[in-house]
């Protein structure tokens, strides 16, 4: 695993512009939702995709871009990017606090970030 090869997301555009996955224009809500913030500091793209694929295999009912997007974004799709990221990150922390965790490809992840990985793996298949 290439550590941190996937660092690409931040609520701060300045930082994002220096990173390999920075977009030239505003990313779509789906793209934002497919970026697990803390996990992407640790794992490369391949690893994230593997975790996502493992999650989809484990939960086949969620093996769908629309379903995952809905689960992750819900009613927040039109919100500001940074607000959306913060909500997703808060959701990750809440998951850990409430025991909503799952092991995907061995990674002990919050359900939210596992879904983010799953969405990433679909979007980048």
């Amino acid at each position, binding site marked *: 695993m290439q*550590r941190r090869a996937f660092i690409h997301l931040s609520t701060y555009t300045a930082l994002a512009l220096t990173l390999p996955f920075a977009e030239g224009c505003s990313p779509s809500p789906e793209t934002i939702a497919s970026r697990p913030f803390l996990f992407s*500091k*640790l*794992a490369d793209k391949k690893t994230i995709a593997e975790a996502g694929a493992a999650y989809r295999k484990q939960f086949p009912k969620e093996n769908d871009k629309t379903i995952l997007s809905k689960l992750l974004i819900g009613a927040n799709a039109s919100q500001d990017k940074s607000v959306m990221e913060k909500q997703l990150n808060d959701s990750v922390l809440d998951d*850990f606090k409430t025991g909503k*965790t799952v*092991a995907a490809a061995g*990674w*002990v992840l*919050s359900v939210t970030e596992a879904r983010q990985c799953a969405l990433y793996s679909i979007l980048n298949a």
Partner: protein
Amino acid sequence: MHIDARELPNNSLIEGDLCIIGAGAAGISLALEFMNTSSKLILLEGGGFEYESQMQDLYKGKTTGQRYFPLESARLHYFGGTTGHWAGFCSPLDPIDFEKRDWVPLSGWPIKRADLDPYYARAHKNLDLGPYEYLDSYWMAQDPKIDSLPLDHSAVYNKMWQFSPPTRFGEKYKETIVKAPNIHLYTYANVTNIDANEHASTIQQVTVKNFAGKTHTVKAKKFVLACCSIQNARLLLASNKQAKQGLGNDNDLVGRHFMEHLEIKSAELWLTKPEALKLYAWESGKTKARAELAISAEKQRELKILNGTASLTPLEVARKQPAFIDMWTADTAQRKKNMSKFDVAEKKSLQESGHDSYQLFTRIEQAPNPDSRITLDTETDALGMPRAILHWVLTPLEKRSIREIYKLIGKELGIIDKGRVRLLEYLRDENDNTWPEFTGGGWHHMGTTRMSDNPKQGVVDANCKVHGINNLFVAGAACYATAGAPNPTLTLVALTIRLADHLKQVNA
């Protein structure tokens, strides 16, 4: 005083009040407690004062079931016993280890942790440990540079280990024992048989042999077996003149419930930034105390898991280290070479700047299991004793427990937002109960004469006396009813000192 049993006239009769069979950590600790008392104490050691291949060969035996170390390499057969090569890791068992746990078959001791606390404090002196203090806050206060993971201690806490120098009992206590007027140490006195009375209710004498072709007889009022879990069981089973199934074995329990600490790499800890995490670091000969990540009693109950801990080794170092089970060969020279490489790697890992990834290595008890056992082979050793066969067996509970431990650590690490945990491949499929090739033990042999108030569930009672035999006792880890997570030496010395107090009380 010291007597070399090879120099005695053949068929000598040795007599005393208390006969201790085996001069390792338990046997020597027991002898020290009786030093300068009115008791004439006979301390029998099979070997001499140094390592000898011929003596080690007496410990050879087959292993079946789970892959294991060569038996002759796992215990040392000379004065001081296995303290001649131990690493000095010490920590007390937890209160929950003594409790009956409905998810752990045959769990529960007839004594509590509080019963052992005063003896743990005394055992610290034998092992040259620091204060009997195992709170992480105490040790962190000693050094402001020590950092740790700020986990919720009601779920995952820092269980402390202290490190003996490590005390080599053979070196440290030889002169004391030899000079003690009431202690009669016999070297090259291998006990090959225990004789009881007709009803096998009282031990009358033991037979000792050596490679000089001498056979002697030892008579005493009381006998204590202290020659490690495998050899204790072997000797009881082989002593079958008065009891066909072996002494103390009316309920077919002697040799059963052999326990090891399962020691195995299990997961990886990935941090968002490098951290030294000095509280968890260990350097041989230097570190006085360190922590391992442990699971609270409440969480063990909730998850219905065994008690285990996780140590941290920088991943870049750990990935280069072969498994202990592969390094620890029967070839002594190769074994030393392998282990010295391991020590060098460990030292390199102690960087002030820290590391951003660590291997999580498990040490966990195994559930008492009657099928995990010592039996006798038809093959005999050079002194005519049947060799031991170890059949080491693990159960799905051990594997599930390890998996749950790391899922919990992963969850708690997520809460503090510092990183993530990744389970190793062999733990990922919840339906897979097999074990990988690198699965190993900690060279910790426990439980072959387990303690229970019920003779149908244990070989010895709460005072370490063999059920049904009024003057035979067992000292050491063979008496453990369950194994806990910590290395066994501290507890076995504490339990031995407790036995000494009991024997003195009975004598009085």
